[in-house]
């Protein structure tokens, strides 16, 4: 095990896959000379050369389309889209081509493409540069969407995404790049579509993914001191979605809150709430609650931006309301 940042885990994994498989290539804006806007590709141009680490023109639809073509012919392109916001410029190639080609061409071609892209706000980048659009892609059959929260999962899931034969949107988060965690030194091949109980608990389940997991763990640790035992489920993958791990947790705790960085309506929380009512309805003591971003274009002004994003305080408030509504007592869990 080595303690490293999420950024380092991504970098090391890209490097390892470039070394392992000649068909892996990297494409994106400013990933070569500039080493990426968030420095994930630092040093890779120097090590692997411009044929495998390619700076592209400022044309997202163009380089995603070109990557799809390369993938159809056996390459394994890993495309960096500077932020998920810019993926909107490539959405026709992603949704109508990458995600559908295998089906529409009768299974004759596959598109082993990875789109690495960070989402998230909190950096004062204003409304067009701070969005959480992962559900747009998670909605589309043919796409896979993974969203690791820890450096270890970043390594395991990026490895899995690169080796997967279907297109994978690999969601990163600006606020996670500098977070640290233990990462196994050996090769790790994650399983796309498996959630994890990252903190066992008894009284209430918090379901989250990506940056939200970090907040959920903080809150769980804080509430432990107040005698509340929170279980945290990290979805890790939005499509495929590991519904059973979520329902199993709720069957145990009988209370569920979803913490999501996207907007409330039609978001990840809506899908989880539906999943829980289908798979654990009889176990629920109260309706599933959601904590999400305010439904506004994210403000640029610092105090307003902070207020609009879901925070630990928001989560604590909603957990408190849910516990009160279900007449939670500390004796309940036998502690």
């Amino acid at each position, binding site marked *: 095990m080595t303690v490293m940042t999420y950024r380092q885990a991504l970098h090391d994994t890209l490097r390892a896959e470039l070394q392992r498989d000649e068909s892996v290539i990297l494409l994106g804006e400013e990933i070569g000379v500039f080493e990426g806007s968030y420095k994930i590709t630092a040093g890779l141009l120097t090590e692997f050369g*411009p044929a495998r680490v390619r*700076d592209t023109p400022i*044309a997202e639809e163009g380089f995603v389309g070109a990557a799809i073509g390369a993938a159809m012919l056996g390459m394994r392109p890993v495309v960096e889209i500077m932020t998920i916001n810019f993926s909107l*410029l490539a959405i026709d190639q992603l949704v109508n081509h990458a995600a559908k080609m295998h089906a529409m061409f009768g299974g004759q071609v596959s598109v082993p493409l990875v789109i690495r892209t960070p989402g998230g706000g909190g950096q004062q980048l204003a409304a067009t540069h701070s969005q959480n659009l992962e559900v747009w892609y998670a909605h589309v059959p043919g796409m896979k969407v993974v969203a690791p929260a820890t450096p270890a999962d970043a390594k395991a899931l990026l490895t899995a995404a690169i080796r997967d034969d279907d297109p994978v949107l690999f969601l990163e988060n600006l606020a996670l790049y500098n977070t640290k965690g233990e990462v196994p030194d050996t090769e790790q091949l994650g399983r796309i579509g498996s959630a994890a109980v990252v903190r066992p608990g008894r009284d209430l389940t918090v379901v989250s993914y990506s940056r939200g997991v970090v907040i959920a763990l903080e809150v769980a640790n804080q509430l432990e001191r107040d005698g509340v035992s929170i279980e945290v489920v990290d979805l890790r993958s939005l499509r495929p979605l590991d519904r059973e791990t979520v329902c199993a947790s709720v069957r145990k705790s009988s209370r569920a809150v979803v913490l999501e960085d996207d907007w409330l309506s039609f978001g990840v929380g809506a899908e989880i709430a539906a999943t829980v009512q289908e798979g654990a309805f009889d176990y629920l003591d109260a309706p599933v609650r959601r904590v999400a971003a305010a*439904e506004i274009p994210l403000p*640029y002004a610092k*105090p*307003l931006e902070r207020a609009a994003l879901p925070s630990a305080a928001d989560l604590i408030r909603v957990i408190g309301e849910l516990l009160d509504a279900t007449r939670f007592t500390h004796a309940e869990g036998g502690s």
Partner: protein
Amino acid sequence: MSEHVVAVQPEPDMIQLLTPEGQRVDHPDYPLGLSDEDIAGLYRDLVLVRRIDTEAIALQRQGELGLWASLLGQEAAQIGAGRALRPHDMAFPTYREHGVAWCRGVDPLTLLGLFRGTNLGGWSPSEHNFNLYTIVIGAQTLHATGYAMGVVRDGAVGTGDPDRDTAVLAFFGDGASSQGDVNEAFVWAAAGNLPIVFLCQNNQWAISEPVERQSRVPLYQRSAGFGFPGMRVDGNDVLASYAVTRRALDDARNAQGPTLIEAFTYRMNPHTTNDDPRRYRLGSELETWKLRDPIERVRAYLSREAGYGSDYFAAIEDESKKLAEHVRAGCRALPDPTPQSLFDSVYVTMPAELRAQRDEFVEFVGSLEEASA
């Protein structure tokens, strides 16, 4: 790095009316038609917008602005183009056209408020005929194209009435020239023979990527394939920028269709205050471009050829200092928006569901304030 790239250099046919040394030169197709007094006015514009820029960077460094996108080095292209506009023409900027904003009468404090986060595009686009800043690169070229379609629909093209005929000026940069939006705007403008001028400030760098990464041909030559004229102007020459833009705007108003102007210039500062260009370009390049400074050549012309003395330059410097004081004090006095304003302006009429979210939020904020009191 071994990959071969084709360098894009200034061409012999780059249009210039004032050399970097301050020598006036004539061009057969672009008569200037400005008095020395007019040129002195342009000098004043150049100095004052550079001062606004300098102050804004300092304010950002002091934590008073979240971000600033500097125009340093691009003053001439912007002032030349901005002054070539008639009041009823419409301009669509990117996020760096502070010089054009100045020409369109937008208070610098309004601009600073935008970068401070205290207003959201505080000026009225219809009042100034200057659209709000667009952050996503190239997108505004299509909006400008749509506006130009409206101009045609209104019959405000080719009537011969100078107070009626209207042109649209769309700004973008070398990086955006690769975007689909810009290329589709070219297609539409050409197909509709629209009264629009596309002004590409080629400042050589799309954050870290040089123009060679975007194009094998000089950018102005791109228009030929779309079926309208293109030309390269010395974007550090305010006189040429003015004359070329004026001619293209005239053509647009006279129903001659679109023009692409490539203003060949240089971004002397980082892309924004978040950027560090030492990572990707050589300092010597900046030194070369300093010799082509857009302001020095006008000053040289005015003092050597037009008889402007130190009194004039001192008066401009004095005005610049006063403007700087106004900008500094005014910026610090701009109030933060209230938390209650968070949900404003999402819809014209706030839906009930959003109103409920707002009420819940306001109550929550109130409870936090109570708890901390």
